[in-house]
């Protein structure tokens, strides 16, 4: 009886522990056990200040993908952001990608605004129209110094 208890206890513990580990890895860590039904898209920004890997991509406020990679173009000094977009979402070629902030101190995310074109973006293509991150500090300094020089 004691032996059964030992084995049963260890078995239950292993099942519970591995279950918890799996939940953390899959739900929190986004480890894709099943092949992801997504396609990649790129976008170039002059500045992405504050955007991180794994940030969400939203369209009409609905989450449709996430940022998978951030790179620097060494010639143009622009940020290249690679996104993975859910399979079912088709985006027009004149879609606008802009970097926004959730609330005032929230995380940065990419907001996509649909365009009006009949041509849709293919996987791996680039979104041409982008709006960079708005830096509050830059706005304020622009306001202060330009109003100074205007006088």
């Amino acid at each position, binding site marked *: 009886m004691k032996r059964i208890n030992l084995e049963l206890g260890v078995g239950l513990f292993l099942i519970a522990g591995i279950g918890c580990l799996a939940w*953390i890895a899959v739900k929190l*860590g986004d480890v894709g056990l099943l092949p992801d039904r997504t396609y990649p898209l790129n976008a170039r920004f002059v500045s992405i200040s504050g955007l991180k890997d794994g940030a969400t991509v939203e369209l009409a406020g609905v989450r449709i993908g996430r940022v998978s990679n951030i790179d620097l173009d060494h010639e143009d000094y622009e940020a290249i952001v690679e996104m993975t977009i859910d399979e079912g979402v088709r985006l027009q070629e004149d879609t606008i990608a802009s970097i926004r902030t959730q609330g005032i101190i929230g995380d940065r995310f990419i907001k996509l605004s649909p365009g009006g074109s009949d041509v849709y973006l293919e996987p791996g293509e680039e979104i041409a129209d982008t709006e960079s991150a708005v830096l509050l500090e830059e706005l304020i300094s622009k306001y202060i110094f330009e109003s100074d020089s205007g006088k």
Partner: protein
Amino acid sequence: MGLARGHLAVIAGALVRGIEAAGDRGLYLVRMSGMMTLLLLRSVARAVTPPWRPRPVIRQIHFIGARSWLLIVVSGAFTGMVVALQFHDTLVRFGTVSLLGSAVGLSLVRELGPVLAALMVIGRAGSATCSEIGIMRIDEQIDALECMAIDPHRFLLAPRLVGGVICQPLLTAMFIVVGVVGGYFVGVGLFGISAGAYFQGMYDSVVWNDVKMGLIKSIVFGLLIVWICSAKGFLLHLNRDGAFGAEGVSRATTEAVVLSFIAVLFADYVISSVMA
């Protein structure tokens, strides 16, 4: 004049004795850390080379892991609840209560889960391991094993190391999941935050790198705890403070617990700074 020379000699003597004592202490520390490192290397070598014996490992998983579940569940639940309570208090002031889920998730996955689960295991299993092996040492059971040509590293230490390395990540995962549920209970149940905001915030802000950091931490902590606690018991006979009986075991156990705590917190800082 003669008196002054006498004083000088006394002071010089005391100085030399002080330096001697420091050197002696240093040599002892170097020797002990060398012995502990050798013990770790030998035990790891025995653990990864056949013949493997699954039954002692299962018994260790039962002792370190399965019997700690209640402690982990209780401490995890209260940790999650108190984190949610405190963060809620702060976030309300900024009007960003929707960030509660990500705050609870990130702090549990990256920091609190691995460290607090490790401290619980030190208190419950580490101290018991140290005193068990220490008593085997003072009872000369370890010498008896060696007399019978049974390798104590393989027989006593290897199963504990394997058990600790397997159990610690699982206990940490349980701690985190229970903590998330505890935070949910306080945030959603008590303060009325929307359940979707709690979980979606968590899913969005916790990334694989955070989970990986927590996992690596817990594996390292498991190894550290079992290593330090069993080494302190195993090398009890080298302790210079004497008192080779009950007092020696109790002193070794105290030292093992203190050293494990410090080692875990130190390793936590190092891993965090390397991976952040």
